[in-house]
């Protein structure tokens, strides 16, 4: 296919249906910590290598392992100081490997949504039944280990098939974080079920900020504050969404956590911010704005 066809065109030009968030908030703000497990010697996917070096890739494995051993606690404490719940983007095998972290998130009232089983098992090349088995693993593991219903999906290591979104909708999930086309939620066209895209953001993601855009920690803090300030201003007219996707192995480093926490202080210092989880944003949008957004959208034309 040349276009995935998940959504129609809807310009951000002031004519969209107005989004109202609970309490009249301007911005629905959410934090999505990616709680991940990378295997040291995963089976090989024909389309993508897990590690750049031969197994064991000590440098890259240990770099990420720091997140669970050390970085998670720093990130968690910073969020706790501002009373902000996380929506964990969870490699569900973490429930087996590091249950201490899962229990800590659950006790703090965090949401668990799925980021696949391991961040080293890609959906690339899976047939639909294999991908269903992957999604079912997440539904059952999160239900059995946390008591929560799985509502959201972020594909493991952002790996997809043409079926991914249809399958998560078919299996009863209500939102995905994989699409980066908007600052407001979007109804998605899927074969069955009802699915919305919730803004997640690549550029606010600490992996992109630190390992692709190579920001300094203080510059990352500035980026977060500026992103918030603009979305807050625009949210006076119609509600916006801001997400900070995080990885404990990056944001939780000792030279970085203070800059992140200063950005949180800035955001938490504003009235009119709805500190929500992914599930709450998706449910509110679906109940109140889904139909109006569908009706306001323009069909996409055919390019020759």
């Amino acid at each position: 296919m040349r276009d995935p066809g998940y959504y129609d065109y809807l310009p951000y030009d002031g004519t969209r249906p107005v989004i109202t968030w609970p309490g009249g908030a301007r911005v629905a703000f959410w934090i999505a910590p990616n709680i991940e497990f990378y295997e040291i010697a995963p089976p090989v996917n024909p389309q993508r290598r897990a590690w750049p070096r031969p197994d064991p890739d000590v440098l890259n494995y240990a770099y990420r392992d720091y997140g669970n051993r050390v970085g998670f606690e720093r990130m968690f404490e910073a969020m706790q100081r501002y009373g902000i719940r996380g929506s964990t983007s969870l490699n569900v095998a973490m429930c087996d490997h590091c249950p201490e972290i899962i229990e800590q998130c659950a006790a703090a009232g965090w949401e668990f949504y799925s980021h696949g089983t391991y961040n080293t098992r890609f959906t690339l090349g899976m047939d639909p039944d294999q991908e269903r088995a992957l999604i079912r693993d997440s539904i059952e593991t999160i239900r059995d280990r946390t008591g929560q219903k799985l509502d959201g999906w972020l594909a493991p290591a952002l790996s997809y098939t043409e079926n991914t979104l249809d399958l998560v909708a078919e299996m009863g999930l209500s939102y995905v974080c994989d699409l980066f086309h908007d600052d407001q939620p979007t109804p998605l066209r899927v074969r069955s079920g009802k699915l919305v895209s919730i803004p997640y953001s690549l550029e606010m993601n600490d992996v992109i900020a630190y390992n692709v855009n190579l920001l300094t920690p203080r510059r990352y803090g500035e980026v977060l504050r500026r992103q918030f300030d603009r979305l807050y201003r625009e949210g006076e007219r119609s509600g916006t969404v801001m997400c900070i996707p995080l990885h404990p192995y990056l944001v939780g480093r000792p030279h970085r956590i203070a800059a992140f926490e200063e950005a949180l202080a800035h955001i938490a210092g504003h009235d009119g911010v709805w500190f929500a989880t992914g599930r709450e944003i998706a449910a509110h949008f679906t109940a109140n704005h889904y139909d109006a957004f569908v009706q306001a959208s323009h069909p996409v034309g055919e390019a020759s």
Partner: protein
Amino acid sequence: MTLDPGYLRYPRRRYGMDHDLYRWSMLRQRPAVTWPGGAKVALLIVPVLEWFPLDMANKPFAPPGAMSTAYPDLRHYTLRDYGNRVGIFRILDELARRGLKATAAINAAVALRYPALIGAIGRAGCEVMAHGRDMAHLHYGGMDREAERDLIETTLDQLERATGQRPRGWMSPAKSQSWATPDLLQAAGVTYCCDWDNDDLPYRMTTGTGDLVALPLSPDSEDQAIVIRDHHSEDAFAQELCDQFDLLNAEAVRTGSARLMSITLHPWVTGQPYRIGALAAALDHILASPDVWSASGTEIVEAWQTQVPPG
């Protein structure tokens, strides 16, 4: 399309790590550690002395700093050499002014090629850590176990003969290991290794027989990564070092458990005239705190081992 059914099986899905090289634990759950004199942060400074052979093969991968243009890559060869001829002496000077200890990670080839440099390292009172044979001899998964055993023992012997010290610490070139490296290091009498950067305190590897301690060197305070790879200015790097120290120090006070801060310095990077001042400024900031313990790798490992017995 379909994948091999094995791609959805998880034989190592279990409590803890998916390997047997060390045990899973969270820093916050471990018993508190203290340093001599009640210091909060142990400061480990690691200058790295490397030799990149002009004809290096870059197999099975190119280590950071490798030759990268068409042969002969004189520009990178000589810039790396700048560190051993010039840059290291600026670093040693800034450390000596402040009475700071250092643990130099040295390719055995550097010790053989530049005895005068090794003399200066000795006069500066540096501990010698083994850093493999040279940057062309990588340890990697799939290499022959006996060949690796020979590589490790030859490296340690050559460094001992050249420096008068049997290295107790080891850092593999490019921090790359095979599955056997920890066992082979322990069998060769190495006490600690610096390849696993996953913690802010030492911890134990689970090697076959004896005790091998992992002494993590932070990837955030390594000049080549931050300044060359990530293109941060020297001032930004210095700021990051200060922020790192301040956070670790505050965390040690708050939790009652000490922390480790490492600074890894490649002399061809930090030893440049325009960069050395930023390192000096960061060191001054760190040393303004009364809670710093400047220590060698062996001193840190021994202080830790006495508090955290094996088993």
